């Protein structure tokens, strides 16, 4: 007969609980079987003895028989109990299987939720990045008309691209020499160079606001003698003291960023501005030329 293992397991639990009186069904069955075995052996021995010795021990016969019957009855009861316990065990196994199934379902759901969360997180992140780039693009948007206007402005004045008939000028030292000799026939040769440049020339700089503030003496320090251009008669711009690069058409709203800082200090932005410092600096650089020589 099969004996269930949980009966074995239940014994230590019960022992721990201190109920030593409750033995497991298996043990009880085994003990009953042992009793039956003992009793039946005794009976057989008695029967064997009574044959040879003829002792009047009728009382013992019936006693043993009664005990035997009792033990048998116990045995039957215990078998029923064991059967019942078997059924219970089967149910338990079924329930355990159910529980396992549910467990795996839950784990599956957990995995799927994790995946979904991951996908959503990436989607949200990418959407945020897109929004950021849209914002950035919007901030940097300029009307095409303005760009075209500006492009025309810097190209038409030959500030970024030389005129097609541009010829480099002669050596300034040579110019100086010839000027000293003041040879009229050669002056035409001298000034075959085009004075136009991709940067404001000495002349233009001095004609501007900064130049007037500084009141520079005329000298050829920057490599362009003011005299040559004058003599060459190539002066359409000079007569108008106001160059487009000096922007007289500044819109009222357009002002330089307020610099509340003294440029003498390393970390900007904490001191109240001393505007005179800035003005002095720009005039210093141009007025320092008067200090030379």
């Amino acid at each position, binding site marked *: 007969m099969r004996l269930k293992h949980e009966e074995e397991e239940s014994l230590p639990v019960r022992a721990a609980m201190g109920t030593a009186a409750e033995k497991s069904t298996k043990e009880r069955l085994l003990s009953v079987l042992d009793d039956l075995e003992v009793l039946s052996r005794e009976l057989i021995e008695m029967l064997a003895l009574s044959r040879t010795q003829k002792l009047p021990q009728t009382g013992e016969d019936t006693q043993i028989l009664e005990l035997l019957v009792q033990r048998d009855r116990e045995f039957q009861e215990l078998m029923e109990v064991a059967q019942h316990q078997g059924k219970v065990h089967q149910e338990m196994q079924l329930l355990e299987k159910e529980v396992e199934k549910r467990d795996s379902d839950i784990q599956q759901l957990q995995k799927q939720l994790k995946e979904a969360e991951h996908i959503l997180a990436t989607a949200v992140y990418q959407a945020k990045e897109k929004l950021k780039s849209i914002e950035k693009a919007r901030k*940097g948007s*300029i009307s095409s008309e*303005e760009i075209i206007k*500006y492009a025309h*402005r*810097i190209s038409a*004045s030959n*500030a*970024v*691209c*030389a005129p*097609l008939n*541009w010829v*480099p000028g002669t050596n300034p030292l040579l110019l100086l020499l010839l000027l000293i000799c003041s040879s009229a026939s050669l002056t035409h040769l001298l000034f075959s160079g085009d004075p136009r*440049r*991709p*940067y*404001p*020339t*000495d002349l233009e*700089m001095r004609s*501007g*606001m*900064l130049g007037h*503030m500084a009141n520079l003496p005329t000298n050829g*320090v*920057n*490599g*362009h003698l003011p005299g040559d251009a004058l003599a060459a008669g190539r002066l359409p711009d000079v007569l108008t003291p106001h*160059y*487009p*690069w*000096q*922007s007289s058409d*500044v819109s*009222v709203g*357009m*002002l*330089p*960023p307020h*610099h509340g*800082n*003294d*440029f*003498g*200090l*390393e970390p*900007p932005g904490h001191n109240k*501005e001393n*505007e005179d*410092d*800035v*003005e002095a*600096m*720009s005039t*210093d*650089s141009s007025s*320092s*030329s008067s200090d*030379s020589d």
Partner: protein
Amino acid sequence: METEEQARNRFQSELEFVQCLANPNYLNFLAQRGVLRERPFINYLKYLLYWKEPEYSKFLKYPHCLHMLELLQYEHFRKELVNAQCAKFIDEQQLLHWQHYSRKRTRLQQALAEQQQPQQQPPPHGNATTK
């Protein structure tokens, strides 16, 4: 606080000054007088970087000045500008670039156009073979 008039004057003077930086001879001039070594001036150059913003840069007539301004942020460049040869070299290169700019651009556009042409040629050939 400065008045609007003062602010406008400051705008104009800063506009003029930043464009003067496009002139390598002027930069050499400043370097030789030690102006480029002064800390306040270096801070001022950093402050002038606001001209790179589109709302300010649209007033610049000589855009080369922005490149010079960027280079001036580096100490090595400021040190080198003391040499007259360095300034002359920059001037020459600047003029050469200025002279050949339109030619370079047309060449670039031609190259781009040629790149696109081979992509358009195969389809006509394909039609011819099917006929």
